[in-house]
């Protein structure tokens, strides 16, 4: 089956809240998922990602907006007419049916001949590594195995789109990492257009082609994991993906070579992305902890482009050391992977802080 993309056009869903009155679970959500792509809806709980997914599935009726699978408008179709594969957080296996019948359910609904059912189930159980478990009941399986049955059941019907609702949150940490790799590999192999919902940013980065970050019912930024990490468009995204420092600064001037800023009393120059803000504007520099460098402080004035700071705490974590460094009013998180000459630096000592000069995002 050739994959069809998904297009959401200004999808909205309201519900009435006891205290707050009318609340939007999703508001004007527009989104394109390319054929064969895995797109993740990422956001904190209550951000509307699951509601959006359920509207794509047809479990929830949109109050406004349209859903397209390829060129087909499926907005008016019920879930059972949309040809979707859905994987629930709690797997939602049929507890009264053995593994084989769970997987075969969708094929039997389509009245496929018995031989074809047996062949397809056998094949897909091979894909997820569950051959030999056909006759077991769901409660006899481990969490990971149940997850695989849910996956097999969703893909065996060769759905037009595959939808995951926090599929890994019931698994322990180790299995979670393993299963997300398997899901990603399977999705690529079958190249099914997939929407994946999670609140775990690491999981999102590991499985996705692209990520759409949602907050309060709307999509706030869309892009690859690298885009979101290095070039967050808002404080919310910067904080939601990875650890981040937001260092206030004032724009002195912008030129083709980058932006001239004053940060904690020091002039620095960064090659920033996007249109440079006007001179005089206050901005915040988005600094990831691993991009900040520390040097032992030398007596006298700090060299140009460097800030003077004080180490507040130092935590040794094996392959890395985490520092908290006070620069002016701000407490900076700094991660260093090779301690080198900083081995002897202790809390309370002064250090020189060097900010990255390339690829620093500025938030107004």
């Amino acid at each position: 089956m050739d994959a069809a993309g998904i297009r959401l056009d200004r999808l909205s869903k309201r519900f009435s809240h006891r205290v707050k009155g009318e609340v939007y679970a999703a508001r004007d959500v527009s989104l394109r998922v390319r054929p064969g792509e895995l797109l993740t809806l990422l956001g904190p709980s209550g951000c509307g990602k699951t509601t959006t997914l359920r509207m794509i599935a047809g479990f929830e009726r949109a109050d406004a907006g349209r859903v397209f699978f390829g060129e087909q408008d499926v907005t008016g179709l019920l879930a059972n007419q949309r040809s979707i594969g859905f994987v629930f957080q709690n797997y939602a296996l049929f507890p009264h049916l053995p593994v084989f019948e769970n997987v075969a359910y969708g094929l039997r609904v389509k009245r496929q001949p018995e031989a074809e059912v047996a062949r397809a189930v056998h094949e897909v159980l091979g894909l997820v590594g569950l051959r030999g478990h056909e006759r077991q009941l769901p409660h006899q399986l481990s969490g990971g195995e149940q997850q695989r049955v849910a996956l097999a059941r969703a893909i065996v019907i060769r759905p037009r789109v595959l939808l995951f609702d926090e599929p890994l949150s019931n698994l322990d940490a180790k299995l979670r990492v393993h299963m997300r790799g398997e899901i990603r590999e399977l999705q690529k192999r079958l190249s099914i257009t997939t929407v994946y919902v999670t609140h775990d940013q690491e999981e999102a980065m590991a499985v996705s082609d692209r990520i759409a970050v949602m907050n309060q019912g709307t999509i706030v930024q869309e892009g690859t994991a690298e885009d979101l990490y290095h070039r967050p468009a808002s404080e919310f995204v910067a904080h939601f993906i990875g650890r981040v420092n937001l260092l206030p600064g004032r724009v002195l001037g912008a030129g083709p070579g980058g932006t001239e800023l004053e940060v904690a009393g020091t002039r620095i120059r960064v090659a920033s992305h996007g249109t440079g803000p006007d001179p005089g504007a206050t901005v915040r520099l988005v600094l990831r902890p691993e991009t900040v460098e520390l040097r032992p402080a030398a007596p006298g004035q700090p060299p140009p482009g460097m800030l003077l700071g004080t180490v507040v705490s130092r935590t040794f974590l094996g392959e890395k050391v985490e520092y908290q460094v006070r620069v002016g009013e701000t407490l900076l998180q700094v991660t260093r992977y090779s301690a080198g000459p900083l081995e002897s630096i202790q809390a309370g000592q002064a250090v020189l802080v060097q900010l990255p000069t390339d690829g620093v995002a500025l938030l107004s």
Partner: protein
Amino acid sequence: MARAVRSAGAGGSRLRQDPALLATVVVLWALLALFVLYPLLMLLGRTFLEDGRPSLHGVLGIVRDPNHLTALGNSLLLAALVGLTGTALGFLFAYTAARAGLPRGWRTLLDAATLLPLVSPPFTTAIAMIFSFGPRGLVTYQLLGIKGATVYGLPSTLFSETVTYFPIAYLTLRPILATLDSNVEDMAFSLGSSRWRVFRTVTLPLAIPGLANAFLLLFAASLADFATPLILAGNDFPVLPTQAYLQITGLFDLQGGAVLSFVLLVPAFGVYLLQRYWVSRRYYVTITGKAGARTAISGVAPWARLALIALCLLVAIVICYFYALLVYASVVVALGANHAWTWRHYQVILTEGMKAIRDTLVIAGAGMPLGGLYAILVGYLVARKVFPGRQAMEVVSMVNYALPGTIVGIAYLIAFNDPPLVLTGTALIIVACYVFRYSPTGVRATVALLHQIDPSIEEASQGLGASSGTTFRRVTLPLIVPAFFAGLGVVFIRSMTAISATIFLVSINWTLITVRILENITELSLGPAAAFSVLVVLIVFAVISAISALLRRLRAPGTMAVTSLLGG
């Protein structure tokens, strides 16, 4: 095995160290032996002993008697039919309540309609049937003009018992349908199933253990019910409990009654075993995760929703009609003959019937606190304490509850009629019968509540040096107060409404409203019977409302409505 032995040993030593626990266990066992085991043994003795020697003569006599065999067959047939129709009706109501997306007011209406039969004496609908379809019935005679219509027989008994007992099925099935993981149904739906197919291949199979359980509960209830058949079955459709009752009250044949009720015990025990060892193991445990919001879309088709609501409404209307008829019959001279307004029936029951009302209230009032206390003590001991015979105590405490009332009544009659312990004619025997028969619901409520309370709270108290008695009083008791009131409420309601066991135990000194109603019906003074019934329903409603209000104020985890305990 090794573990069981060790824990029993540990329990023994703990008992010796803890005099309060030891005393409580001993007292409870003494009471259980006296009021549960002893009567049952005496009943078996009457059945299988003749002049002190074992004999099958009595049992064989019954088996050879074609009349009794017919009665047994009729009883089983009636129980099976009531089980089927009642379960179907209960499922209809439960499914509608859980899936049809009813507004709150409508759900309250359904609940009220199912509540009425639960809090009435079991034969209330039987009386309404006579008012409605009897020879002078409102429908048969007044409306259709049929002369000499006969209301007696299997169909009317079945109808009446179904209306009376289907709320039990409703209360059993509603939580099962409500907690069924909606994701599982959504999943089936998303795989391309039609709504009907989802219902057939997922919803229904998952509800089967609940359906089986409901069927068995109704089967047992019908098997034990003798009042409805006594009023409605007529001569052509004799059933076993009625035969046993007539054998004893009509022929003064205690042994015959004992043997007949023993025959009844066999299917009752079979039902119990099925429930405990088959149904309870087949409940599907669904993995809980994020419980998806139930979706209106994949639930019920719009036309099916309307059909469900219409059917439920029809049943609710029939029930309301029955009770309205009852109220009407209590304020007219003679329903079907003279529809002039009168308070006479109420005057009658408040004068001639005053003794029964007073006796019933005294007995129910005495049974209430005793039943509540007994329930939380036994529930606490079996849920929390380790002592030898703990499991046996749990099983024995359930026996009188599981047995048909007729058996319990006859067993008490046999046991306490002769020395060493003569209790017949006293209030004590009736109170004891109610407490040991209806407290087990409270025991279960206590156990359920305690399972939700972390034992470490009590261990913390003991760690601070409190004895088990102090811990119970200061820590556990406040936590299980809701179960105490719920258990007490059930004992009160049943003391007001039950008849099957205690009809054998009333005397000139102590009588009961329900027994008076039955006497009124057999004497064909239906007006006072209706007035009595209305009075009982009103009293029970008032007490339930009071206890429910109290429970709401004491709101604690797992608090349950009193009426929801009447089901299981």
